[in-house]
């Protein structure tokens, strides 16, 4: 009896095992690839959660793990990781995809050895096969390399992800663009026009913009002024906006690794006291002394002067962007304008939901504008370059960029959809039904490509600190410029 039972159960086990084995053999033929985790190192909102959910639907086997840090630390992490790879070829826990912001693009372009050349990659059939699951997402054919998708993107955005040896190290995500977001209710109160065409006509230049700010401030009560109310959230943002309207910033493209530094040019430089940085006065003529020496390039001084002029005019609150005061001020109406890249629209919506319908978007003074933008790269030591490449191709395809724009406001870098009515006709009720698609598109098309060099970020920060010193009245504008020159010489040495 007991023996009988034993044999029967044994037979049962054997049967289950056989069936199980059969299933195991049958499975790969029917279902898809084995489970894979793609590690993405990123910052801010480069990778949008809704898109990840959509990707999970078409690729249930792929798990995407985001590791978010602040911008500068995320770049430090990547440096450390690449350094470990370059020195010892140890993989550690590598990212499969790393997001590189445009201000660091010059730095990373100088190190193509850290990245997989995307010309050598080729999309698998995974996306094409999954197409039937979500017909609305764009069809990614198999066998695509970076060269095959190049023409989808804005040429200058594409160039920011191209290494000096012509290798493609990053695919552009969005274009920042830059326009002026303004509060119609506050403009009305100050007796200014509220219609976006009329508002845009108020400030064709930065000088006019500052003048409008002054006019606005005359209508602000003394009590409100004491509370820190201003026209623009932070005048420091004018610097970057004006800088990007030039044809060059701190570097010229001379075809070398780092670019040629042009932050200084020969000119009439002030003679200064090394300790106080104050300009020396000629004891005889009682006039400030100058000598022939290096001065900051005219583009920098132009943008600098606009910023200082706006600061002196007292049109800015001194709230720093992305601080708690900034978020509060957005709701409270502490400031009436923000220089807003397209991606900032979603931030405003999130932080000041009660101001819905009170905002509108006018064009940027002085021409087109841009701020920000990111490339997705695949480090050379990535564990799953194939899956990462498939993901990037899907995520940054025109169709997905359009969805991201409609949902989160990030402006597409794919020029092939710039004529799409879904983009040009897109209106945002939060911004008084402004046709944000066509507004940002117009600004972006006015832009001239600017060459970003290796130490762009460090130079920007040194100049930002210099403007901060003037705003805090620690140094005069001239003293601060002298200090900036010393700092830049040090930073670029």
């Amino acid at each position, binding site marked *: 009896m007991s023996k009988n039972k034993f044999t029967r159960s044994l037979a049962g086990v054997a049967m289950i095992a056989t069936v199980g084995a059969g299933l195991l053999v049958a499975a790969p033929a029917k279902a898809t690839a084995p489970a894979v985790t793609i590690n993405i190192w990123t910052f801010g909102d480069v990778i949008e959660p809704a898109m990840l959910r959509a990707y999970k639907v078409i690729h249930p086997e792929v798990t995407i793990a985001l590791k978010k840090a602040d911008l*500068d630390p995320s770049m*430090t992490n990547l*440096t450390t990781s*690449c*350094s470990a790879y*370059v*020195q010892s070829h140890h993989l550690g826990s590598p990212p499969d995809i790393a997001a590189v912001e445009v201000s660091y693009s010059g*730095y990373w372009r100088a*190190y193509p*050895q*850290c990245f997989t050349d995307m010309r050598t990659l080729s999309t698998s059939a995974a996306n094409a096969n999954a197409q039937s699951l979500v017909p609305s997402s764009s069809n990614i054919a198999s066998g695509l390399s970076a060269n095959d998708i190049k023409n989808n993107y804005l040429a200058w955005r594409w160039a920011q992800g191209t290494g000096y040896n012509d290798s493609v190290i990053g695919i552009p995500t969005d274009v920042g663009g830059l326009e002026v977001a303004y509060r119609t209710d506050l403009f009305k109160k100050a007796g200014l026009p509220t219609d976006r065409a009329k508002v845009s006509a108020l400030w064709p230049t930065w000088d006019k913009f500052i003048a409008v700010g002054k006019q606005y401030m005359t209508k602000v009560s003394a009590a409100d002024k004491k*509370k*820190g109310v201003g026209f623009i959230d932070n005048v420091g943002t004018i610097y970057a906006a004006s800088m990007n309207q030039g044809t060059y910033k701190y570097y010229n493209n001379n075809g070398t690794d780092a670019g040629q530094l042009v932050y200084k040019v020969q000119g009439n430089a002030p003679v200064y006291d090394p300790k106080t940085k104050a300009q020396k006065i000629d004891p005889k003529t009682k006039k400030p002394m100058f000598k022939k020496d290096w001065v900051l390039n005219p583009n920098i001084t132009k943008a600098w002067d606009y910023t200082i002029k706006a600061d002196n005019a007292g049109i800015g609150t*001194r*709230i*720093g962007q992305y*601080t*708690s*005061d900034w978020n*509060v001020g957005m709701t409270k109406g502490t400031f009436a304008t923000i220089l807003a890249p397209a991606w900032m629209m979603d931030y405003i919506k999130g932080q000041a939901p009660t101001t819905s319908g009170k905002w509108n978007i006018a064009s940027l003074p002085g021409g087109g504008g841009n701020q920000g933008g990111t490339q997705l790269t695949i480090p050379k030591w990535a564990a799953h370059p194939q899956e990462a490449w498939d993901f990037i191709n899907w995520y940054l395809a025109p169709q997905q960029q359009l969805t991201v724009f409609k949902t989160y406001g990030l402006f597409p870098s794919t020029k092939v959809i710039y004529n799409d009515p879904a983009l040009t006709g897109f209106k945002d009720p939060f911004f008084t039904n402004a046709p944000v698609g066509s507004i940002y598109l117009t600004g972006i098309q006015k832009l001239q490509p600017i060459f970003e060099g290796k*130490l762009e970020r*460090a130079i920007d*920060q040194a100049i930002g*600190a*210099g*403007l*901060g*010193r003037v*705003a*805090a009245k*620690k*140094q005069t504008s001239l003293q601060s410029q002298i200090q900036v020159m*010393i700092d830049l010489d*040090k*930073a670029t*040495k």
Partner: protein
Amino acid sequence: MADIATKGRSRPKAAPSPWKQKKRKPSKGGSGVPSLNGKWAYLFIAPFVIMFLIFGLLPVLYSTNLAFYQYDPLSLSQTWVGWDNFKFVLADETFWISLGNTFEIWALSTFPQMLMAIGFAAILRSRFLRGKTFWRTILLVPNITSVIAVAIIFGQLFGRDYGMINNVIGFFGFPHIDFVENSFASHVAVAVMITWRWVGYNSLIFLASMLAIPDELYESASLDGAGAWKQFTNVTLPGLKNTITFVLIVGTIGGLQVYAEPLTLAGTQDGGSSHQLSTLTMYLYNETFINMKYGYGAAIGILITIIVLIISAINFLVTRRVASEDKR
């Protein structure tokens, strides 16, 4: 000391050599495992020593070497530059600003804190205080709070426009103080954070030391007609001498490493527009990892080490003097 420790046990008077213990029979008293006193000790300290060699000494040697190069970790290019890195650091204004900031923050946080800690300890020792355990526990709470959380909360308290402290200042009709841009005010803000975090901990150390002062001293002092203040200055303070030295040394070590508080307050790695919040450690990090100058950063590290060595030497001399005074 050895005499006292072995008294009453059948041990030879001379301090036992750990290497000869095997030959001796275990003592009748059963004073633990004799061999534990000996070479086994090396096994037990081995984890620390090995860790120290890998994570302490090796990096020091490596960065000492690095300090003489211009080094790019990504392209692996190493250019010999001799003493140039050191020369540039010493010529760099930011280095001297950071050094000054570090010492100013150290002084602002250490001395008021010590006075407060002794005061708190005196209150805690008081006979009349109720719920002693409760107060002692409360004092330690700031110390177990995360530095970043402390810095963020204090950063909001010190906010220029809407911060609570400036609201109070504004209420009394004074102009708002910019606790980030104003150099001295920003150091005060950082010192307040450090003091808030460490004053309770130091109070307990002082309290322990105060409780060790024998009551007889106080009794005889009061018999001699000394009031509470006289007792404090003539009995309590001399009794705290060693503890004060200890707290000072620990505070100095901490003071030279201040990083998270000023960084969070400044919001930028360079310590603000005129580096007013940059400390030595922040300066080191900024130059090395933000400006990507690794050789330069290594040179800064070595200079910091030299500064620490000088301060340690001063500490050592002071401690020795205090100790020798005790023997007298």
